[in-house]
């Protein structure tokens, strides 16, 4: 997790004003009214890929106890997405949004929200978070490019609640 830190400017004489010490972190502090969301999928023995081919899977949203494809009214705020392989091969992960499930079926991507590559693992942080838009469908594209059958662990971290207060 990265933390950006900004130093406090000292003006005048006396105690530093720590209310001015701003930190931005991709691991937000969970407030009482917020819920932490963890989405984890382990894939095993997926057929080998050649770049730029990737597999795509819809990110499910949990509403009560039901998984649904479309983002619910109360937004999830996604902030960390990763793919981890079990060997040191090139890994890619991308997070995309479709306006609707029909658009997902026809493959019309509305927005690319981030892509990362890495050896062994690929991680990207959405520093300000991405709030899921009601009715949109979100998916991850992922791949491992060892040229062999592979295993991959894809995780997404998000928050529910408090998003309404952003801007």
């Amino acid at each position: 997790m990265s933390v950006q830190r900004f130093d406090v400017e000292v003006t005048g004489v006396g105690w530093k004003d720590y209310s001015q010490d701003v930190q931005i972190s991709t691991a937000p502090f969970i407030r009482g009214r917020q819920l932490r969301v963890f989405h984890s999928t382990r894939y095993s023995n997926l057929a080998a890929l050649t770049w730029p081919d990737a597999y795509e899977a819809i990110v499910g949203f949990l509403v009560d106890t039901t998984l649904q494809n479309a983002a619910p009214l109360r937004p999830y705020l996604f902030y960390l997405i990763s793919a981890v392989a079990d060997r040191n091969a090139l890994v890619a992960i991308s997070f995309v949004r479709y306006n609707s499930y029909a658009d997902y079926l026809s493959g019309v991507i509305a927005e690319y929200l981030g892509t990362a590559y890495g050896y062994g693992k690929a991680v990207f942080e959405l520093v300000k978070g991405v709030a899921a838009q009601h009715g949109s469908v979100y998916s991850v594209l992922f791949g491992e490019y060892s040229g062999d059958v592979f295993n991959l662990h894809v995780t997404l971290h998000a928050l529910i609640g408090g998003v309404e207060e952003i801007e």
Partner: protein
Amino acid sequence: MSEETEVKVEGQISVGNKQVKFERQKIRKRKLREGK
């Protein structure tokens, strides 16, 4: 872009204290940054 196929996975979503596990998921093949 290929048709969706169902694969066996070890999946879970947890929201607060609630947790749901899933064992199957539909995936399909497509190109990264396709159309851009």
